[in-house]
């Protein structure tokens, strides 16, 4: 698995990504394109800003009564003949699906793109249990064949060249295929069409779940979401508890901004609203519908510092604009959810220790906050996470001492001036032509790639005397 990188320190994983010239180019092209599409889409949509505020308010209002909405959702799903499972942990969610597979003699399960199932590493578990999992989103299919993980929330295979995809598909169908996206897509269509018709179970996530009606909402462009929910005899949807929304009226607010934020489309090609299993006299649809409501660390943040991260729609807009993501891509983060929101979600799901390094993988430029459809203040929460790393003594002792000493200097002008004077003396051997080009110790982290101005011969404080 490409996820093997996660055992290395983050900085090393990032360095690997920086040296990958194809990845660098692919990231620039993809993120620049998504940024432009999003911008154009909102530019022609004056009501967009007000809708973002409303969407944010709906998410907040839902969290304020999350227990009620989950209960209402469950009641409605059950009323329609569906089954609801309550999974406190990711393990429980996974076990529930495996049990269903065993009891229903499921041999093959087709999946539509779902970050929730990535989160619980469902595919590995299914394989070990003798069930063949088939990812059907083209990007997910590619990375499943490559035994990798998604590198972008909505474009999982942006790190792959068409040549690499051609190799993977050629191996799969036993025939040499050209590196032509059109041809490769047609091959995937044919291969996967058979699987849709054969599979016993369809597994999806949920973009939204409407409490009023017991409806699961799936948003896709390819149509695999529709296949997976209608052709196999069993449909299982796995969703984080924060995906519930109150009503159809609310749903329309989210639909109006979701695709615009993700791909710049007014709507994605398919928005599929699924209510329970096949109803009486219907020709098709699954015989059984199961909804797994998964907590997996989310409820701890309802009253926690990462509460706002529970608003996230998984649109990927914050990845595209993040200068760090744009340089290193998704894999370097080393967890299911990449990018700035991914750091927060990782902390939520795996605890603060998991983001000891990642919490600093942001320049706090605020671009993520600016584009988030529900205006999640990601930089603020990253600072909060950093604060916790200090408070919980997860941050290295040396770092904590440096910052605390630094504070002492800043609150004591005399000490501050003294250390400036010392710095000026200490830098002397390193000044060349008025620049510092190579410094030892921690300063080398700057001067290895950039020049640094030396401490001025006369600071402004000193020059002020002459200006008065």
């Amino acid at each position, binding site marked *: 698995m490409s996820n093997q990188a996660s055992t290395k320190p983050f900085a090393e994983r990032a360095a690997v990504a920086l040296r990958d010239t194809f990845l660098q180019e692919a990231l620039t092209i993809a993120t620049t394109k998504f940024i432009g599409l999003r911008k154009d889409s909102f530019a022609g949509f004056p009501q967009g800003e007000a809708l973002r505020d409303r969407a944010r308010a709906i998410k907040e209002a839902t969290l304020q009564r999350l227990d009620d909405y989950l209960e209402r959702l469950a009641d409605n799903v059950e009323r329609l003949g569906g089954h609801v499972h*309550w999974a406190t942990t990711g393990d429980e969610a996974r076990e529930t699906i495996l049990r269903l597979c065993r009891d229903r003699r499921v041999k093959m399960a087709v999946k539509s793109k779902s970050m929730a199932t990535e989160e619980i590493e469902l595919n590995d578990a299914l394989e070990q249990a003798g069930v063949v999992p088939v990812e059907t989103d*083209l990007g997910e299919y590619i990375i499943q064949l490559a035994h990798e993980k998604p590198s972008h929330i909505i474009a999982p295979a942006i790190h792959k060249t068409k040549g690499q995809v051609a190799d993977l598909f050629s191996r799969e169908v036993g025939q040499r295929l050209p590196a032509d996206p059109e041809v490769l897509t047609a091959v995937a*269509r044919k291969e996967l069409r058979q699987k849709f018709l054969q599979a016993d179970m369809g597994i999806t996530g949920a973009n939204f779940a409407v409490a009023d009606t017991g409806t699961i909402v799936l948003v896709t462009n390819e149509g695999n979401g*529709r296949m997976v929910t209608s052709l196999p005899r069993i449909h299982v949807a796995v969703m984080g508890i924060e995906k519930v929304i109150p009503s159809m009226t609310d749903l329309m607010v989210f639909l109006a901004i979701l695709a615009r934020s993700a791909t710049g489309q007014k709507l994605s*090609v398919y928005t599929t609203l699924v209510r329970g299993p*096949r109803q009486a*006299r219907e*020709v098709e649809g699954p015989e059984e519908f199961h909804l797994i*409501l998964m907590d997996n660390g989310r409820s701890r943040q309802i009253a926690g510092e990462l509460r706002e991260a529970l608003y996230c729609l998984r649109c990927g807009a914050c990845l595209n604009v993040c200068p760090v993501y744009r340089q290193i891509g998704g894999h370097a983060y080393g967890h299911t959810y990449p990018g700035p929101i991914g750091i927060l979600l990782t902390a939520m799901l795996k605890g603060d220790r998991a983001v000891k390094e990642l919490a600093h993988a942001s320049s706090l430029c605020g671009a993520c906050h600016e584009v988030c459809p529900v205006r999640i203040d990601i930089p603020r929460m990253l600072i909060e996470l950093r604060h916790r790393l200090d408070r919980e003594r997860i941050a290295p002792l040396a770092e904590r001492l440096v910052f605390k000493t630094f504070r002492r200097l800043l609150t004591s002008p005399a000490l501050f001036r003294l250390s400036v004077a010392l710095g000026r003396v200490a830098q002397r051997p390193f000044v060349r032509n008025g620049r510092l080009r190579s410094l030892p110790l921690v300063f080398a982290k700057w001067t290895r790639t950039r020049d640094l101005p030396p401490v001025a011969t006369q600071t402004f404080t000193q020059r002020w005397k002459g200006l008065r």
Partner: protein
Amino acid sequence: MATRAEFLERIRREVRRTPGLFPASAAERPPRPAEARAAVRRQMAERWPEALERFRQEFERVNGLFHRAAGLEEVAGVIRDLAREKDAHELITWASAELGLDLRGSLESQGLSIVAAPADGRDDARGRYREAAARAPIGVTGADFALAETGTLILLSGPGRPHSTSLLPDTHVAIFGKDRLLETLEQVGIMLEALHLDAARSMSGSVVSFITGPSRTADIELTLTRGVHGPKEVHAIFVEAR
């Protein structure tokens, strides 16, 4: 596994620990959805020509193919021409009652074989339809709503209206009249709220599909490719006589 009660109790405890980040309320549902729906219908009875034009523009922008037909004969003509162009000999359709017109008379005489969805879900009929759906190059459906601001066709599933008709064939043709036009997502919300109250009584179809153009992907080097899983072409036929 936690029981439902335990699970919800934990959530409730957490919810009660905080007043939240700011005072907020969800979107206001229409207090009387049926009346709101009637009001939308009245509005659209006036505004449908503008909505149709906007629908056409947006639908074409997402690579939909728009046709206008005066009546049944012209609809059949459009479909016949399409079948000829695709060298297709078989069509699947919604049940005639759901489609609102019977194409068999005009198309079967042209040598096209038509498999209409059964109006109920008995196993043998279901099997036959599924086989035909997996094979047929063209699927013909109605559309319950045509949403102008996004160029979206909205289809409700139910007896006689399977959703594979609009999904499995390479070409999907949707037929609709002026009474199906809506202008905004907000209006769709009203329709769905009203429908939900109807459905709560009748327990009809399980799926609502919003379709905005042909199936597409950009997962290989961001190259836009159509027809990855769903139809490669989507046609909308607007019937004036309806």
